[in-house]
């Protein structure tokens, strides 16, 4: 082993394996060119191995207008492309389908096709310029009820930007709190904890059915400490945002926080596995 190959800033691999890390937010490109997905898997491979990440939730377009025109056309002509990554990496990837709250009818149909009948285990609501609405919109109501009926996990992209929203479809943690208040029995993942996490954590604090996802912003010190203090470790879920963000940025948030090993295990995997319990039970996937 040379100097450059010795772990630097990370615990030894056997210690990381004990955390049983599951990643709720993995972002390889799902596009018209399937080679891009494979390239991003290859880019991420070393980081996944070094962090000993066991499973990764990936967000897949299902032809609801959530992708660019070329990708949408490809999905229509070759629907097998939708789940191809899950077939290629069945032991690693967990499929989360991208829904379009602007098209409720087709989104409900897609839930039956891809979640009720498998293999998708959850849903991702993006904050894209196309195919997004603020998540307090009433269009979300029938969708989240259907997802809950099927046992799926709900991940909602959120940001609090100082300069305001970049597009009308973006969601904030406060808007997610409104949705969560309407459905107190349904769990929601607040992606990126709102980015500006001091506000984000406050916005979701009073809603025990919202969990904070950890990725998507710089490794600003103190984030996990505050999240665990204000929400409890049961309401924090690790995300890697690989490959567009680095392991250094995302893993260090949890690894370096001043929290107990028990809390770290919850954040790194136990909480996500708990959320996935209902859909795995419905789809007949054994507990891990």
């Amino acid at each position: 082993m040379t100097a450059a190959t010795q772990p630097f800033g990370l615990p030894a691999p056997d210690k990381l394996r004990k955390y049983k890390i599951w990643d709720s937010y993995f972002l390889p490109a799902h596009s018209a060119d399937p080679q891009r997905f494979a390239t991003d898997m290859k880019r991420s491979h070393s980081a996944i191995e070094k962090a000993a990440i066991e499973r990764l939730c990936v967000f897949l377009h299902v032809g609801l207008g959530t992708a660019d025109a070329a990708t949408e056309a490809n999905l229509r002509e070759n629907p097998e492309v939708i789940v191809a990554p899950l077939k290629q990496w069945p032991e690693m990837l967990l499929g989360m389908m991208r829904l379009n709250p602007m098209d409720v009818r087709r989104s409900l149909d897609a839930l039956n096709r891809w979640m009720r009948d498998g293999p998708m285990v959850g849903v991702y609501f993006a904050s894209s310029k196309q195919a997004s609405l603020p998540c307090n919109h009433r269009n979300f109501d029938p969708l989240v009820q259907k997802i809950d009926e099927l046992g799926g996990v709900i991940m909602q992209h959120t940001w609090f930007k100082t300069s305001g929203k970049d597009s009308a479809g973006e969601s904030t943690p406060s808007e997610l709190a409104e949705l969560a208040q309407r459905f107190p029995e349904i769990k929601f993942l607040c992606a990126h904890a709102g980015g500006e996490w001091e506000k984000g954590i406050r916005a979701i604090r009073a809603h025990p059915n919202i969990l904070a996802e950890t990725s998507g912003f710089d490794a600003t010190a103190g984030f996990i400490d505050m999240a665990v203090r204000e929400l409890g470790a049961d309401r924090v879920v690790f995300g890697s945002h690989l490959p567009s963000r680095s392991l250094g940025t995302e893993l260090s948030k949890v690894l370096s926080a001043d929290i107990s090993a028990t809390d770290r295990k919850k954040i790194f995997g136990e909480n996500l596995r708990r959320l996935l319990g209902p859909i795995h039970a419905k789809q007949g996937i054994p507990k891990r």
Partner: protein
Amino acid sequence: MPTLDRRELLHGAVAASVVANLSTAVVAEDGSARSVQRRVIDTNVSLFRWPFRRLPLDETGELVAKLRSHSIEQAWAGSFEGLLHRDIAGVNSRLVEACRAHGDDLLFPFGSVNPVLPDWEEDLRRCHEEHRMLGVRLHPNYHGYTLDDPRFERLMRLAAERRLTVQLAAAMEDTRTQHPLLQVADVDLTPLPEMLKRVPEARVVVLNHKVTGAEVMQLLNTPGAYFDMSRVNATDGVARVMRTVPKGRVVFGTHAPFLIYESAMIKVYESNLTDDEDSSILYENAKRLVSRASV
């Protein structure tokens, strides 16, 4: 696995040839491979209070303990006070005192200079002549000037005459998360390549930049320009930057305690660098940068 002690090595307990190549594994006399610590200069830490929240390592003693826990050899320290205070001489005196009190040759102060303030030249003089600093740190966006401001070029000329390295913080935090009453855009680096051509003796290290974009690549191809990697992102980001710019231009910086200390370390590790690349970013490039200092 036994580990060689860095200070033992530095104090001549081991052959000089080993010292010259610390970043590779050593084969002991019995033939077993032994782990060797990397030599690391962290070019980007700050002391005192971040104005907008308490940080886990914002007590200097705690930051120093963290540096020692990772066997960091040197840390170049600026002051968060330099962002907003106008008594810059006081800011720099406190920085020097804290480095002396806690550092034990670990913390090297980089004083603040604000060329918008009257008599800033005296601050620069004190940094060099009285405090014997290796360099100074600038915050153009918080101090309210652009890089085509004649005062900036004059500062760069005077710093170059004194062989001071200039650290230029392009940002301190993501603009999206700034306090609503203190929103400052990232520093526009566009004028820098032309200025460096006019002041070829200058050495400027851009801190806290994501190191993406065509204008940045142009800057990195300009002699005299360096970047720290604290905010470089993507899992292959550090390797990409190192392999697309001239050798020796990227230095290790953590931007601690604002960012989590281990974040930058893991970024280097996950980049799968060669031993040469690993030692150059962590140590050699920074060492070379200040080797011309006249202190």
